[in-house]
């Protein structure tokens, strides 16, 4: 747990905050673990907003698919989810490709959602609808919103693009902030709190469908390459456990049940598939690019 909190590429202030959040989250979770033996599945609003209907549908579908008690546990950040996975507080989680790649040694992908026909998505760079910027280079000195420091689309893509330009978010932007939610990034840009934001393309497109008035106040000025969709993961040493295996089966079978179909419709996803080789190579390459940045610039 402590090892996670002292990552070399995170500012000290962020690390301290995350440590507090993580500690509180784990304490609450420990209580719950002791109280019930249900399967514990973790989610984060970074990716999924706190939509009660979506969460209820997902829970129902997975509970039916697994045929046992099922707890959906929500945490604020990916780091909290990762920490809970690694220390066994939760049995499985829907997290981002970036923390998965960071902890590839310890984690295994159970399944990957498919969106628009494939298990991939893009990261969008957005600005206000009336902003003249045409690309990342035009945003020097701007205020910028990221979603989560462990988000691929909401941080890594932009940070690695900047690394390739030989700079860091702290140097390139006048100020950057984390909103811990892709929808919040869109809000921050649409409302003018920040000039630009890094957002999950899948979330932005879904918002265009669900809340067109919000996304219409933003404009996409850059799209990343197609990268591996946020996967469902479990700790590698536990994938053979019956609960985890049952969870994997329930996930892969979501599109074949009515409840699963309903949940996928609400999420605007096509289905859930097994991972494919090289799906997260793009993210791996971006992590590598980020690590290329000289230590003096970090």
């Amino acid at each position, binding site marked *: 747990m402590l090892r996670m909190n002292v990552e070399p590429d995170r500012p000290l*202030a962020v690390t301290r*905050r995350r440590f507090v959040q993580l500690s509180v989250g784990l304490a609450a979770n420990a209580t719950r673990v002791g109280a019930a033996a249900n399967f514990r599945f973790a989610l984060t609003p970074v990716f999924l907003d706190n939509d009660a209907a979506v969460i209820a549908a997902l829970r129902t579908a997975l509970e039916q698919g697994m045929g046992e008690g099922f707890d959906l546990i929500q945490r604020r950040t990916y780091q909290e989810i990762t920490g809970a996975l690694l220390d066994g507080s939760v049995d499985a989680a829907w997290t981002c490709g970036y923390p998965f790649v960071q902890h590839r040694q310890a984690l295994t992908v159970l399944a990957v959602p498919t969106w628009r026909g494939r298990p991939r998505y893009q990261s969008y760079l957005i600005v206000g609808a009336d902003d003249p910027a045409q690309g990342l280079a035009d945003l020097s000195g701007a*205020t910028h*919103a990221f979603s989560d420091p462990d988000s691929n689309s909401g941080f890594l893509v932009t940070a690695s693009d900047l690394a390739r330009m030989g700079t860091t978010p702290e140097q390139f932007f*006048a*100020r950057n*902030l*984390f*909103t*811990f939610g892709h929808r*919040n990034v869109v*809000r*921050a840009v649409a*409302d*003018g*709190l*920040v000039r630009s934001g890094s957002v999950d393309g899948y979330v932005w497109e879904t918002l265009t469908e669900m809340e067109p008035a919000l996304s219409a106040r933003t404009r996409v000025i850059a799209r990343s390459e197609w990268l591996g969709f946020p996967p469902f993961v479990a700790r590698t040493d536990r994938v053979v456990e019956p609960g985890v295996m049952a969870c994997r089966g329930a996930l892969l079978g979501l599109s074949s049940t009515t409840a699963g179909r309903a949940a996928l419709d609400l999420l605007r996803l096509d289905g859930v598939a097994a991972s494919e080789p090289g799906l997260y190579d793009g993210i791996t390459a971006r992590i590598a690019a980020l690590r290329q940045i000289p230590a003096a610039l970090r």
Partner: protein
Amino acid sequence: MKVAWFHNLPVTARVHLLVAALMVTLGLVASQGGLAVLGTVQDARLREAARLHVEGLSVALGPFVLRQDLWEVYDLLSRARAATEGNRLLLTVVADAEGRVMAATDPRRAPVDAAIAPFLTKSMEPRAVRMTGDPVLLVVAPVVFQGRKVGQIVTELDVTDLLAERRQVTLWLLLGNAAATMTLAFAGWLAVSRLLHPLGLMVAAMAGRDGVPKPIPVTDIPVGDPGVMRLLATYNAMTTAAHARAEAERRLAERERFVSLGRLSSSLAHEINNPLGGLMNATDTILRFPDRADVVRQSAELVQRGLAHMRDVSRAILDQNRLDRAGQPLRPEDFDDLRLLFEPEASWRGLTLHWRIDAPAAVMVRLPATPVRQVVLNLLLDAAAAARDPGLVALQVTEDAQVLAIAVQDSGPGLGPDDLARLMEAGPVPQGGGVGLRLVHDLVASLHGTLHHDRVDGLTVITVALPVGGGDA
């Protein structure tokens, strides 16, 4: 000086105006009081709203401001705004301890990292919030966390509705109070009219026909207030007394004609008596020499001349007294009559008489004979009495520019102050003395003429100027 017009108004109008002014003042004071209470209530409402808002937010924002967590500050402000949608909170800005904006409900108006200073001008603390007339008020409060000031929160309050409410209440207060004031003023007018009715009666009676005060009929005197009844009764007594006095003066003036003749009686008696001796001698001569035709004719002619003179004198006396001559025009013969009457008086007193009538008859006829004869005779008699033996009395009648000028001069010592007052002024007649000079004054006034008094080379000159264009003739 500016209210001179007010003092020139009748007392009844002034009292009405004063009552109306007092009512309007009362209405204004009442309106002001109502507005002051409304203002106090509105200020209290505003203060409470501002205090709840900024203090509530300040508590919630404390840790986020301390940690410089811009998103959480913004998210909290957004949620607070959504919870108070349609409220009077237009904008809320949160700044850090250095005065830099962290977040605002409208980031475009208050961008991140901008200075908070422009929002602090004209801002007030929550406990000092009050309506200033601006549709938007700014409230500032510190963001305190763990006893330490970590930032500031500024809120724009939209008070357009309160201003509109105040305007509406002001309008209704003014309308209501104006109506009440008008009603009260009308009631006051009625009451004051009733109170002032006796005074109005008296004012109207004082300015009666021809400007002569007349008594108020007893039937018109309101019954009730003993003070008012006594006042009107006293007024009636005074007007009756004044009327009686005016009547007495009129009769006295009427008698003045006889008085002036009386003053001539002695000399006129001599004027008649003197020829009588000659007439007696002539008749004795006729009786003694009835056969001498030349003596009889000579004596008869003498008797005829004497009788003719006596006839002229008696006719002049009769003319002076005849009331039926009223309305007759003035003629040169009237001055001959006056000379006939006055010459014996002057002669008896040993006075030199200068008599010059230079006015044409055509001018004289435009004036009435009776008052002019009375004026000239009175002035001549007073001149004769003043000019001591050996003295001089002169009469000169001229016409110039439609004015008949009658100048009477005498070599006397001049008129005393009392006599001058009688002649020249219209005020009360000084005690003592006759009414002749006052009669001259009144007659000249009735002919729209003027009187001038002068002393020239030891002579007293009194000139009567009578306009012949617009006189009573």
